[in-house]
């Protein structure tokens, strides 16, 4: 099962529609379930919900063989944490999908690091969905304790 998620802040019909069309032309041979936000678009080929309770959402993530989503940090973190292959399409300001284009740079960076796959337009989606099947995401190693330690040292310097 492929889990499609676009977050709940704004709809992202351009991506939902692209996945729907990928189904039409035979690029997807798996079941899909989608979380699509508050929108009037109704996918023809798969089930969907505007929003999902956290528990239900987590369950879809666990069951999914791969995930397709917008390039939100929440989505990227969630996929990496669960070791799921993720394909993102960044939201664009041009289409009023987001307030600025930060998702483009973020998606580019994380794909360069081998953590995710990215498409920048709907036409490239079918090809990338095929690649997603065999994509093994590179594990991300963050350093929160190093950063926390720097802050702690700063706080201690104030106490002296």
């Amino acid at each position, binding site marked *: 099962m492929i889990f499609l998620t676009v977050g709940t802040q704004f709809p992202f019909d351009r991506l939902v529609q692209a996945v729907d069309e990928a189904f039409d032309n035979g690029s997807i041979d798996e079941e899909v379930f989608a979380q699509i936000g508050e929108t009037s678009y109704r996918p023809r080929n798969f089930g969907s919900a505007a929003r999902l309770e956290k528990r239900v959402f987590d369950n879809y993530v666990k069951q999914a063989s791969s995930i397709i989503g917008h390039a939100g*940090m*929440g989505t990227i973190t969630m996929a990496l944490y669960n070791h799921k292959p993720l394909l993102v399409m960044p939201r664009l300001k041009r289409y009023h999908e987001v*307030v600025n284009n930060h998702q483009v740079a973020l998606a580019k*960076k994380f794909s360069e690091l081998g953590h995710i796959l990215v498409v920048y337009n709907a036409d490239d989606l079918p090809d990338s969905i095929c690649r997603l099947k065999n994509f093994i995401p590179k594990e991300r190693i963050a350093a929160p304790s190093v*950063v926390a330690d720097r802050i702690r040292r700063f706080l201690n310097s*104030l106490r002296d």
Partner: protein
Amino acid sequence: MVRHRKEVHPLSANLLATNPPATNPKTSGYMVTTKKMKICLAASAGGHTSQLLELSESWRGSHTFWITTASALREMLSKYGQVYIAGECNREHLLRVIVVLLRCARIVFRERPDVVISTGAAVGCITCFFSKLFGAKVVWIDSITNVERISLSGRLVRPIADLFLVQWPELAKKYSNVEYLGAVI
């Protein structure tokens, strides 16, 4: 203790009711190091808050309180002390910005933090400015989502920040007085 902002008295009443007499740690008979530092943790709901939570080691043992944007987080954050909900705002809605601005000013005036630690966005930026005004030190960690340049909030806070951290090495090269040690998530 959970306190709902709507029931709180207007600013004038707060001034009289909630400010304890000021104590100078250097003259109050305690060593400076035994006085608990009061830290304000300021972050918008979502990714900003989860990044700040990743740094919880840094403020362990200090007296903390939160300023965030959504009441849904109240329960989760309440273990770190009082949680204030300033409401959502962004640069597109000026009136909302003013409302949040006033709320943050009132909270900072009442709490008088020694330090503010923020990961953004607008609510963090506003809190940093008011806290600085009252003599607090400012620690800013720019969100991981800012890859090519520092966030708008971060660019505003940078001149008044006492410690400014970024999560991409390229940004530390691009801006002065900015440190990179690693990514939080």
